Protein backbone atom coordinates (compact mmCIF):
# COMPACT_ATOMS: atom_id res chain seq x y z
CA UNK A 1 0.00 0.00 0.00
CA UNK A 2 2.90 2.29 0.82
CA UNK A 3 4.36 1.81 -2.60
CA UNK A 4 1.04 2.38 -4.31
CA UNK A 5 0.36 5.66 -2.54
CA UNK A 6 3.84 7.12 -2.39
CA UNK A 7 4.56 5.96 -5.92
CA UNK A 8 1.47 7.86 -7.00
CA UNK A 9 2.71 10.95 -5.20
CA UNK A 10 6.15 10.64 -6.75
CA UNK A 11 4.50 10.28 -10.17
CA UNK A 12 2.41 13.40 -9.67
CA UNK A 13 5.54 15.25 -8.63
CA UNK A 14 7.29 14.20 -11.83
CA UNK A 15 4.26 15.34 -13.78
CA UNK A 16 4.51 18.78 -12.17
CA UNK A 17 8.22 18.95 -13.02
CA UNK A 18 7.91 17.80 -16.61
CA UNK A 19 4.63 19.07 -17.97
CA UNK A 20 5.84 22.60 -18.71
CA UNK A 21 8.81 21.27 -20.66
CA UNK A 22 6.56 18.96 -22.62
CA UNK A 23 4.07 21.71 -23.38
CA UNK A 24 6.69 24.07 -24.79
CA UNK A 25 8.22 21.35 -26.92
CA UNK A 26 4.86 20.07 -28.08
CA UNK A 27 3.66 23.45 -29.26
CA UNK A 28 6.74 25.11 -30.63
CA UNK A 29 9.34 22.33 -30.98
CA UNK A 30 11.59 24.38 -28.71
CA UNK A 31 13.56 22.43 -26.11
CA UNK A 32 13.53 24.73 -23.11
CA UNK A 33 16.71 23.72 -21.30
CA UNK A 34 16.24 26.70 -18.98
CA UNK A 35 13.27 24.83 -17.49
CA UNK A 36 15.07 23.76 -14.32
CA UNK A 37 16.54 27.22 -13.83
CA UNK A 38 13.14 28.86 -14.07
CA UNK A 39 11.87 26.32 -11.56
CA UNK A 40 14.56 27.26 -9.05
CA UNK A 41 14.28 30.97 -9.82
CA UNK A 42 10.58 30.87 -9.02
CA UNK A 43 11.43 29.08 -5.80
CA UNK A 44 13.84 31.80 -4.78
CA UNK A 45 11.52 34.63 -5.80
CA UNK A 46 8.68 33.13 -3.81
CA UNK A 47 11.02 32.46 -0.89
CA UNK A 48 12.16 36.08 -0.95
CA UNK A 49 8.60 37.38 -1.05
CA UNK A 50 7.48 35.15 1.79
CA UNK A 51 10.46 34.99 4.13
CA UNK A 52 12.03 38.39 3.51
CA UNK A 53 9.10 40.64 2.66
CA UNK A 54 6.65 38.73 4.79
CA UNK A 55 3.96 38.43 2.13
CA UNK A 56 1.37 35.70 2.61
CA UNK A 57 1.79 32.61 0.45
CA UNK A 58 -1.45 33.33 -1.40
CA UNK A 59 0.05 36.58 -2.71
CA UNK A 60 3.60 35.38 -3.16
CA UNK A 61 2.73 32.40 -5.33
CA UNK A 62 0.88 34.32 -8.06
CA UNK A 63 3.72 36.87 -8.09
CA UNK A 64 6.26 34.07 -8.36
CA UNK A 65 4.39 32.44 -11.25
CA UNK A 66 4.02 35.78 -13.02
CA UNK A 67 7.77 36.29 -12.71
CA UNK A 68 8.34 32.86 -14.23
CA UNK A 69 6.02 33.64 -17.13
CA UNK A 70 7.71 37.00 -17.75
CA UNK A 71 11.12 35.32 -17.73
CA UNK A 72 9.71 32.92 -20.31
CA UNK A 73 8.50 35.77 -22.51
CA UNK A 74 11.88 37.49 -22.23
CA UNK A 75 13.76 34.29 -23.06
CA UNK A 76 11.70 33.78 -26.20
CA UNK A 77 11.55 37.36 -27.42
CA UNK A 78 15.15 38.29 -26.70
CA UNK A 79 16.95 35.06 -27.52
CA UNK A 80 15.00 32.14 -28.94
CA UNK A 81 13.27 34.10 -31.68
CA UNK A 82 16.61 34.79 -33.30
CA UNK A 83 17.88 31.23 -33.26
CA UNK A 84 14.63 29.42 -33.87
CA UNK A 85 14.98 26.73 -36.51
CA UNK A 86 18.64 26.05 -35.69
CA UNK A 87 18.14 23.12 -33.38
CA UNK A 88 21.60 22.96 -31.88
CA UNK A 89 21.56 26.69 -31.20
CA UNK A 90 18.18 26.39 -29.48
CA UNK A 91 19.62 23.84 -27.09
CA UNK A 92 22.83 25.79 -26.51
CA UNK A 93 21.00 29.08 -26.02
CA UNK A 94 18.42 27.77 -23.57
CA UNK A 95 21.01 25.74 -21.68
CA UNK A 96 23.22 28.81 -21.43
CA UNK A 97 20.34 30.86 -20.09
CA UNK A 98 19.65 28.15 -17.55
CA UNK A 99 23.30 28.06 -16.47
CA UNK A 100 23.40 31.84 -16.22
CA UNK A 101 20.32 31.93 -14.01
CA UNK A 102 21.43 29.06 -11.74
CA UNK A 103 25.05 30.10 -11.36
CA UNK A 104 23.96 33.72 -11.09
CA UNK A 105 21.79 32.78 -8.14
CA UNK A 106 24.66 30.82 -6.64
CA UNK A 107 27.05 33.73 -6.98
CA UNK A 108 24.52 36.00 -5.28
CA UNK A 109 25.21 33.90 -2.23
CA UNK A 110 22.12 31.73 -2.34
CA UNK A 111 23.95 28.61 -1.16
CA UNK A 112 23.26 25.96 1.40
CA UNK A 113 20.06 24.35 2.48
CA UNK A 114 18.82 26.94 4.92
CA UNK A 115 16.04 28.34 2.74
CA UNK A 116 12.70 26.71 2.51
CA UNK A 117 9.20 27.54 1.45
CA UNK A 118 6.34 27.07 3.85
CA UNK A 119 3.92 24.21 3.23
CA UNK A 120 0.33 25.08 2.33
CA UNK A 121 -1.04 23.41 5.37
CA UNK A 122 0.51 21.41 8.17
CA UNK A 123 -1.10 18.13 8.93
CA UNK A 124 -1.41 14.50 8.06
CA UNK A 125 -4.21 12.44 6.61
CA UNK A 126 -4.43 8.69 6.61
CA UNK A 127 -5.14 7.01 3.31
CA UNK A 128 -5.70 3.28 3.79
CA UNK A 129 -3.74 3.55 7.06
CA UNK A 130 -0.79 5.16 5.31
CA UNK A 131 0.08 8.58 6.73
CA UNK A 132 0.35 11.28 4.08
CA UNK A 133 1.05 14.92 4.86
CA UNK A 134 -1.14 17.62 3.40
CA UNK A 135 1.54 18.97 1.10
CA UNK A 136 1.85 15.63 -0.68
CA UNK A 137 -1.91 15.49 -1.10
CA UNK A 138 -1.65 18.93 -2.67
CA UNK A 139 1.02 17.62 -5.05
CA UNK A 140 -1.39 15.02 -6.39
CA UNK A 141 -4.41 17.30 -6.57
CA UNK A 142 -2.59 20.22 -8.18
CA UNK A 143 -0.70 17.93 -10.54
CA UNK A 144 -3.95 16.66 -11.95
CA UNK A 145 -5.62 20.06 -11.77
CA UNK A 146 -2.79 21.43 -13.90
CA UNK A 147 -3.25 18.80 -16.59
CA UNK A 148 -7.01 19.33 -16.53
CA UNK A 149 -6.60 23.10 -16.76
CA UNK A 150 -4.25 22.85 -19.72
CA UNK A 151 -6.62 20.41 -21.39
CA UNK A 152 -9.56 22.77 -20.96
CA UNK A 153 -7.45 25.71 -22.08
CA UNK A 154 -6.45 24.03 -25.34
CA UNK A 155 -10.00 22.90 -25.97
CA UNK A 156 -12.13 25.91 -25.27
CA UNK A 157 -10.11 29.08 -25.73
CA UNK A 158 -9.10 30.72 -28.96
CA UNK A 159 -5.43 30.97 -28.09
CA UNK A 160 -5.43 27.44 -26.67
CA UNK A 161 -6.88 26.06 -29.89
CA UNK A 162 -4.27 28.03 -31.80
CA UNK A 163 -1.55 26.35 -29.72
CA UNK A 164 -3.04 22.99 -30.58
CA UNK A 165 -3.11 23.84 -34.28
CA UNK A 166 0.49 25.03 -34.30
CA UNK A 167 1.54 21.91 -32.39
CA UNK A 168 0.08 19.62 -35.04
CA UNK A 169 0.99 21.41 -38.24
CA UNK A 170 2.66 24.77 -37.92
CA UNK A 171 2.36 25.83 -41.52
CA UNK A 172 -1.27 24.79 -41.88
CA UNK A 173 -2.01 26.88 -38.79
CA UNK A 174 -0.19 29.87 -40.27
CA UNK A 175 -2.39 29.65 -43.36
CA UNK A 176 -5.37 30.15 -41.05
CA UNK A 177 -3.92 33.34 -39.63
CA UNK A 178 -2.26 31.97 -36.50
CA UNK A 179 0.98 33.78 -35.64
CA UNK A 180 3.66 31.26 -34.79
CA UNK A 181 5.80 33.78 -32.88
CA UNK A 182 2.83 34.67 -30.71
CA UNK A 183 1.93 31.05 -29.95
CA UNK A 184 5.56 30.21 -29.20
CA UNK A 185 5.75 33.14 -26.78
CA UNK A 186 2.58 32.01 -25.06
CA UNK A 187 3.85 28.43 -24.93
CA UNK A 188 7.20 29.37 -23.38
CA UNK A 189 5.51 31.70 -20.89
CA UNK A 190 2.96 29.06 -19.95
CA UNK A 191 5.61 26.36 -19.73
CA UNK A 192 7.70 28.56 -17.46
CA UNK A 193 4.73 29.34 -15.26
CA UNK A 194 4.06 25.61 -14.97
CA UNK A 195 7.70 25.06 -13.99
CA UNK A 196 7.14 27.74 -11.35
CA UNK A 197 3.96 26.03 -10.20
CA UNK A 198 5.92 22.83 -9.75
CA UNK A 199 8.47 24.75 -7.71
CA UNK A 200 6.05 26.34 -5.25
CA UNK A 201 4.32 23.01 -4.67
CA UNK A 202 7.34 20.71 -4.52
CA UNK A 203 10.01 22.87 -2.91
CA UNK A 204 8.28 23.04 0.50
CA UNK A 205 9.03 19.31 0.75
CA UNK A 206 12.75 20.06 0.69
CA UNK A 207 14.75 23.23 0.59
CA UNK A 208 15.33 25.81 -2.09
CA UNK A 209 18.75 25.02 -3.53
CA UNK A 210 20.42 25.76 -6.84
CA UNK A 211 21.33 22.13 -7.51
CA UNK A 212 17.64 21.31 -7.72
CA UNK A 213 17.59 23.08 -11.10
CA UNK A 214 19.84 20.53 -12.78
CA UNK A 215 17.96 17.66 -11.25
CA UNK A 216 14.59 18.97 -12.41
CA UNK A 217 15.89 19.45 -15.93
CA UNK A 218 17.12 15.87 -16.15
CA UNK A 219 13.89 14.53 -14.67
CA UNK A 220 11.81 16.58 -17.10
CA UNK A 221 13.85 15.44 -20.08
CA UNK A 222 13.67 11.81 -18.95
CA UNK A 223 9.89 11.95 -18.62
CA UNK A 224 9.49 13.66 -22.00
CA UNK A 225 11.85 11.30 -23.82
CA UNK A 226 10.21 8.21 -22.38
CA UNK A 227 6.72 9.53 -23.06
CA UNK A 228 7.54 10.75 -26.53
CA UNK A 229 8.72 14.33 -27.03
CA UNK A 230 5.83 16.70 -27.45
CA UNK A 231 3.12 14.21 -26.53
CA UNK A 232 1.07 15.28 -23.52
CA UNK A 233 -0.54 11.92 -22.99
CA UNK A 234 2.92 10.38 -23.16
CA UNK A 235 4.16 12.79 -20.51
CA UNK A 236 1.42 11.72 -18.12
CA UNK A 237 2.02 8.02 -18.83
CA UNK A 238 5.79 8.32 -18.49
CA UNK A 239 5.44 10.27 -15.22
CA UNK A 240 3.67 7.28 -13.76
CA UNK A 241 6.04 4.64 -15.11
CA UNK A 242 9.08 6.57 -13.93
CA UNK A 243 7.46 7.73 -10.70
CA UNK A 244 6.73 4.17 -9.62
CA UNK A 245 10.14 2.94 -10.81
CA UNK A 246 11.78 5.66 -8.76
CA UNK A 247 9.78 4.97 -5.67
CA UNK A 248 10.35 1.22 -5.87
CA UNK A 249 14.07 1.86 -6.29
CA UNK A 250 14.03 4.03 -3.20
CA UNK A 251 11.98 1.55 -1.20
CA UNK A 252 14.08 -1.49 -2.02
CA UNK A 253 17.38 0.13 -2.93
CA UNK A 254 19.07 3.36 -2.05
CA UNK A 255 17.66 6.87 -2.54
CA UNK A 256 20.61 8.05 -4.58
CA UNK A 257 19.79 5.52 -7.29
CA UNK A 258 16.82 7.73 -8.22
CA UNK A 259 18.88 9.62 -10.75
CA UNK A 260 20.22 6.38 -12.19
CA UNK A 261 16.65 5.28 -12.90
CA UNK A 262 16.04 8.42 -14.91
CA UNK A 263 19.24 8.22 -16.92
CA UNK A 264 18.75 4.51 -17.58
CA UNK A 265 15.20 5.26 -18.74
CA UNK A 266 16.49 7.80 -21.26
CA UNK A 267 19.13 5.41 -22.59
CA UNK A 268 16.77 2.43 -22.78
CA UNK A 269 14.10 4.45 -24.55
CA UNK A 270 16.53 5.82 -27.10
CA UNK A 271 17.80 2.32 -27.81
CA UNK A 272 14.52 0.44 -27.91
CA UNK A 273 11.92 2.91 -29.06
CA UNK A 274 13.41 6.33 -29.82
CA UNK A 275 10.05 8.01 -30.33
CA UNK A 276 8.91 7.09 -26.80
CA UNK A 277 5.50 5.73 -25.77
CA UNK A 278 3.46 8.18 -27.79
CA UNK A 279 5.86 9.56 -30.36
CA UNK A 280 4.30 11.26 -33.35
CA UNK A 281 2.45 8.68 -35.36
CA UNK A 282 3.75 8.71 -38.87
CA UNK A 283 1.12 6.41 -40.30
CA UNK A 284 -1.58 9.05 -39.88
CA UNK A 285 0.15 11.53 -42.09
CA UNK A 286 -0.01 9.96 -45.50
CA UNK A 287 -3.60 8.92 -45.82
CA UNK A 288 -4.82 9.88 -49.26
Amino acid at each position, binding site marked *: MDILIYGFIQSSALLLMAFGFSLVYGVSRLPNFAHGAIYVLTGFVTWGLVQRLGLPLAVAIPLGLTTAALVGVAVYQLVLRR*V*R*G*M*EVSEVIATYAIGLAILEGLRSLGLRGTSRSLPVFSDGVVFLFDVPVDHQRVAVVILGFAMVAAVWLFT*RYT*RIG*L*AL*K*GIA*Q*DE*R*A*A*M*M*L*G*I*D*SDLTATVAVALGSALAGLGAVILLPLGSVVVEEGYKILIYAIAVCVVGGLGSWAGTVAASFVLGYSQYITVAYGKPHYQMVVMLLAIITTLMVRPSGFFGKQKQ*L*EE*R*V
Partner: protein
Amino acid sequence: MLTADGLMVFYENMLALNNISLRCDEGQVVGVFGANSAGKSTLMYTLSGIILDIRHKEKMRGGERISLFGDVHYRGEAIGELKANQRARRGIVLCPERRRLFPESSVLENLKIGAYLASRDEARETLGYVLELFPPLKKLLKRAAGFLSGGEQQMVAIGRALMAQPKLLLLDEPLLGLAPSVQQVVVEAIPVIRDQRGISVIVTEQYARPVMPHVDYAYILENGSTVLEGTRDELLDNPDVKSAYFGC
Protein backbone atom coordinates in the same frame (compact mmCIF):
# COMPACT_ATOMS: atom_id res chain seq x y z
CA MET B 1 -8.56 42.21 -56.18
CA LEU B 2 -5.24 40.40 -56.34
CA THR B 3 -2.57 41.02 -58.91
CA ALA B 4 0.83 39.42 -59.15
CA ASP B 5 3.45 40.88 -61.46
CA GLY B 6 6.62 39.23 -62.67
CA LEU B 7 6.85 36.61 -59.94
CA MET B 8 10.16 34.79 -59.98
CA VAL B 9 11.08 32.16 -57.42
CA PHE B 10 14.44 30.42 -57.32
CA TYR B 11 15.31 27.38 -55.21
CA GLU B 12 19.08 27.80 -55.27
CA ASN B 13 19.61 28.12 -59.01
CA MET B 14 16.52 26.23 -60.03
CA LEU B 15 13.85 28.47 -61.43
CA ALA B 16 10.50 27.41 -60.01
CA LEU B 17 8.41 30.35 -61.18
CA ASN B 18 9.45 32.27 -64.23
CA ASN B 19 7.99 35.72 -64.62
CA ILE B 20 4.42 34.82 -63.75
CA SER B 21 1.78 37.49 -63.77
CA LEU B 22 -1.69 36.71 -62.60
CA ARG B 23 -4.82 38.54 -61.70
CA CYS B 24 -7.98 37.67 -59.89
CA ASP B 25 -10.88 40.10 -59.81
CA GLU B 26 -13.54 40.40 -57.12
CA GLY B 27 -15.98 37.50 -57.40
CA GLN B 28 -13.96 35.54 -59.93
CA VAL B 29 -12.93 31.92 -59.98
CA VAL B 30 -9.47 31.67 -61.53
CA GLY B 31 -7.93 28.36 -62.50
CA VAL B 32 -4.24 27.53 -62.66
CA PHE B 33 -3.51 24.30 -64.48
CA GLY B 34 -0.30 22.44 -65.05
CA ALA B 35 1.47 19.15 -64.62
CA ASN B 36 3.46 18.09 -61.58
CA SER B 37 6.35 20.46 -60.93
CA ALA B 38 4.89 23.14 -63.16
CA GLY B 39 5.06 25.51 -60.19
CA LYS B 40 1.46 25.46 -59.00
CA SER B 41 2.20 24.94 -55.33
CA THR B 42 5.09 27.37 -55.35
CA LEU B 43 2.73 29.92 -56.85
CA MET B 44 0.18 29.30 -54.09
CA TYR B 45 2.88 29.55 -51.42
CA THR B 46 4.03 32.82 -52.96
CA LEU B 47 0.54 34.31 -53.07
CA SER B 48 -0.28 33.21 -49.51
CA GLY B 49 3.06 34.19 -47.98
CA ILE B 50 3.98 30.70 -46.84
CA ILE B 51 7.04 30.94 -49.08
CA LEU B 52 8.49 33.53 -46.67
CA ASP B 53 8.28 31.01 -43.85
CA ILE B 54 9.82 28.29 -46.01
CA ARG B 55 12.62 30.66 -46.98
CA HIS B 56 13.24 31.65 -43.36
CA LYS B 57 13.30 28.04 -42.13
CA GLU B 58 15.60 26.92 -44.92
CA LYS B 59 17.93 29.79 -44.11
CA MET B 60 17.96 28.98 -40.40
CA ARG B 61 18.83 25.37 -40.93
CA GLY B 62 21.36 26.14 -43.63
CA GLY B 63 19.30 24.55 -46.38
CA GLU B 64 18.27 25.78 -49.81
CA ARG B 65 18.60 29.44 -50.63
CA ILE B 66 15.27 30.69 -51.90
CA SER B 67 15.08 33.98 -53.78
CA LEU B 68 11.87 35.85 -54.54
CA PHE B 69 11.23 38.60 -57.05
CA GLY B 70 8.13 40.38 -58.26
CA ASP B 71 5.19 42.14 -56.63
CA VAL B 72 1.92 40.98 -55.19
CA HIS B 73 -0.82 43.55 -54.68
CA TYR B 74 -4.02 42.89 -52.83
CA ARG B 75 -6.75 45.52 -52.84
CA GLY B 76 -4.20 48.19 -53.66
CA GLU B 77 -1.74 47.19 -50.97
CA ALA B 78 1.69 45.68 -51.65
CA ILE B 79 1.69 42.47 -49.63
CA GLY B 80 4.87 40.84 -50.91
CA GLU B 81 6.61 41.18 -47.54
CA LEU B 82 3.68 40.28 -45.31
CA LYS B 83 3.81 37.00 -43.42
CA ALA B 84 1.21 34.33 -44.11
CA ASN B 85 -0.75 35.04 -40.94
CA GLN B 86 -0.91 38.75 -41.78
CA ARG B 87 -2.20 37.96 -45.25
CA ALA B 88 -4.78 35.60 -43.77
CA ARG B 89 -5.93 38.47 -41.56
CA ARG B 90 -6.50 40.51 -44.71
CA GLY B 91 -8.57 37.70 -46.20
CA ILE B 92 -6.16 35.57 -48.24
CA VAL B 93 -6.49 32.02 -46.96
CA LEU B 94 -4.74 29.02 -48.45
CA CYS B 95 -6.26 25.56 -48.37
CA PRO B 96 -3.08 23.60 -48.99
CA GLU B 97 -2.20 20.68 -51.18
CA ARG B 98 -2.77 17.34 -49.43
CA ARG B 99 -5.13 19.17 -47.08
CA ARG B 100 -2.87 19.19 -44.02
CA LEU B 101 -5.62 18.76 -41.46
CA PHE B 102 -4.74 18.61 -37.78
CA PRO B 103 -4.83 14.82 -37.64
CA GLU B 104 -5.25 14.29 -33.90
CA SER B 105 -8.01 16.86 -33.53
CA SER B 106 -11.62 16.03 -34.27
CA VAL B 107 -13.34 17.48 -37.30
CA LEU B 108 -15.12 20.00 -35.11
CA GLU B 109 -11.86 21.04 -33.50
CA ASN B 110 -10.22 21.46 -36.90
CA LEU B 111 -13.01 23.84 -37.81
CA LYS B 112 -12.72 25.66 -34.48
CA ILE B 113 -8.97 26.12 -34.91
CA GLY B 114 -9.78 27.47 -38.36
CA ALA B 115 -11.98 30.09 -36.74
CA TYR B 116 -9.00 31.76 -35.03
CA LEU B 117 -9.60 34.98 -36.97
CA ALA B 118 -13.39 34.86 -36.77
CA SER B 119 -15.54 36.50 -34.15
CA ARG B 120 -17.76 34.26 -32.06
CA ASP B 121 -20.83 35.04 -34.18
CA GLU B 122 -18.97 34.60 -37.45
CA ALA B 123 -17.63 31.26 -36.26
CA ARG B 124 -21.06 29.97 -35.35
CA GLU B 125 -22.62 31.18 -38.59
CA THR B 126 -19.81 29.79 -40.76
CA LEU B 127 -19.88 26.44 -38.98
CA GLY B 128 -23.56 26.14 -39.85
CA TYR B 129 -22.80 27.10 -43.43
CA VAL B 130 -19.98 24.56 -43.80
CA LEU B 131 -22.23 21.75 -42.56
CA GLU B 132 -24.89 22.84 -45.01
CA LEU B 133 -22.36 22.95 -47.84
CA PHE B 134 -20.93 19.51 -46.98
CA PRO B 135 -23.70 17.55 -45.21
CA PRO B 136 -21.57 14.39 -44.81
CA LEU B 137 -19.50 16.25 -42.20
CA LYS B 138 -22.44 16.45 -39.81
CA LYS B 139 -22.00 12.82 -38.80
CA LEU B 140 -18.23 13.10 -38.57
CA LEU B 141 -17.81 16.06 -36.23
CA LYS B 142 -16.44 13.96 -33.38
CA ARG B 143 -14.11 11.80 -35.49
CA ALA B 144 -10.34 12.36 -35.53
CA ALA B 145 -9.54 14.11 -38.78
CA GLY B 146 -6.60 11.82 -39.52
CA PHE B 147 -8.91 8.85 -39.90
CA LEU B 148 -11.24 10.32 -42.52
CA SER B 149 -11.22 9.35 -46.17
CA GLY B 150 -9.55 11.67 -48.66
CA GLY B 151 -12.82 13.21 -49.81
CA GLU B 152 -14.04 13.83 -46.29
CA GLN B 153 -10.67 15.34 -45.41
CA GLN B 154 -10.89 17.69 -48.37
CA MET B 155 -14.33 18.85 -47.25
CA VAL B 156 -12.95 19.53 -43.78
CA ALA B 157 -9.99 21.37 -45.26
CA ILE B 158 -12.20 23.65 -47.35
CA GLY B 159 -14.52 24.14 -44.39
CA ARG B 160 -11.61 25.00 -42.14
CA ALA B 161 -10.36 27.57 -44.63
CA LEU B 162 -13.87 29.08 -44.82
CA MET B 163 -13.90 29.40 -41.02
CA ALA B 164 -11.00 31.85 -41.32
CA GLN B 165 -13.41 34.25 -43.10
CA PRO B 166 -11.51 34.49 -46.39
CA LYS B 167 -12.23 37.03 -49.08
CA LEU B 168 -9.86 35.27 -51.47
CA LEU B 169 -9.63 31.51 -51.12
CA LEU B 170 -6.59 29.74 -52.55
CA LEU B 171 -7.32 26.09 -53.26
CA ASP B 172 -4.23 24.05 -54.03
CA GLU B 173 -5.07 20.80 -55.84
CA PRO B 174 -8.34 20.14 -54.04
CA LEU B 175 -9.04 17.05 -56.13
CA LEU B 176 -5.73 15.31 -55.53
CA GLY B 177 -6.31 11.62 -54.92
CA LEU B 178 -10.10 11.80 -54.78
CA ALA B 179 -12.54 9.39 -56.42
CA PRO B 180 -14.33 10.93 -59.43
CA SER B 181 -17.69 11.04 -57.67
CA VAL B 182 -16.20 12.91 -54.72
CA GLN B 183 -14.33 15.19 -57.11
CA GLN B 184 -17.72 16.31 -58.43
CA VAL B 185 -18.93 17.23 -54.93
CA VAL B 186 -15.80 19.25 -54.20
CA VAL B 187 -15.68 20.98 -57.58
CA GLU B 188 -19.32 21.95 -57.47
CA ALA B 189 -18.79 23.58 -54.11
CA ILE B 190 -16.44 26.14 -55.66
CA PRO B 191 -19.02 28.22 -57.60
CA VAL B 192 -21.45 27.83 -54.69
CA ILE B 193 -18.94 29.33 -52.28
CA ARG B 194 -18.30 32.16 -54.69
CA ASP B 195 -21.99 32.92 -55.25
CA GLN B 196 -23.24 32.51 -51.69
CA ARG B 197 -20.33 33.98 -49.77
CA GLY B 198 -18.87 36.40 -52.31
CA ILE B 199 -15.47 34.76 -51.98
CA SER B 200 -13.09 34.92 -54.91
CA VAL B 201 -11.25 31.68 -55.61
CA ILE B 202 -7.95 30.77 -57.20
CA VAL B 203 -7.83 27.02 -57.76
CA THR B 204 -4.94 24.92 -59.07
CA GLU B 205 -5.33 21.47 -60.52
CA GLN B 206 -3.42 18.98 -62.59
CA TYR B 207 -6.44 17.83 -64.50
CA ALA B 208 -8.26 20.72 -66.06
CA ARG B 209 -11.30 18.77 -67.16
CA PRO B 210 -13.38 18.68 -63.96
CA VAL B 211 -12.54 22.22 -62.89
CA MET B 212 -12.54 24.05 -66.22
CA PRO B 213 -16.35 24.42 -66.49
CA HIS B 214 -16.40 26.42 -63.25
CA VAL B 215 -13.61 28.93 -63.83
CA ASP B 216 -13.96 32.39 -65.33
CA TYR B 217 -10.36 32.73 -66.33
CA ALA B 218 -7.45 30.32 -66.38
CA TYR B 219 -3.69 30.12 -66.68
CA ILE B 220 -1.78 27.12 -67.92
CA LEU B 221 1.69 26.66 -66.48
CA GLU B 222 4.56 24.61 -67.81
CA ASN B 223 7.93 24.45 -66.09
CA GLY B 224 7.21 27.58 -64.10
CA SER B 225 6.05 29.75 -66.99
CA THR B 226 2.61 30.72 -68.20
CA VAL B 227 2.21 29.16 -71.62
CA LEU B 228 -1.43 30.06 -72.16
CA GLU B 229 -4.07 32.14 -70.49
CA GLY B 230 -7.57 33.17 -71.32
CA THR B 231 -11.21 33.05 -70.40
CA ARG B 232 -12.83 29.68 -70.08
CA ASP B 233 -14.36 29.80 -73.53
CA GLU B 234 -11.16 30.92 -75.19
CA LEU B 235 -9.28 28.02 -73.65
CA LEU B 236 -11.97 25.48 -74.36
CA ASP B 237 -11.87 26.47 -78.03
CA ASN B 238 -8.12 26.35 -78.24
CA PRO B 239 -6.99 23.24 -80.15
CA ASP B 240 -3.70 22.99 -78.24
CA VAL B 241 -5.53 22.92 -74.94
CA LYS B 242 -7.98 20.39 -76.24
CA SER B 243 -5.26 17.99 -77.28
CA ALA B 244 -2.99 18.56 -74.29
CA TYR B 245 -5.50 18.68 -71.47
CA PHE B 246 -8.67 17.04 -72.66
CA GLY B 247 -7.23 14.33 -74.83
CA CYS B 248 -9.38 14.92 -77.90
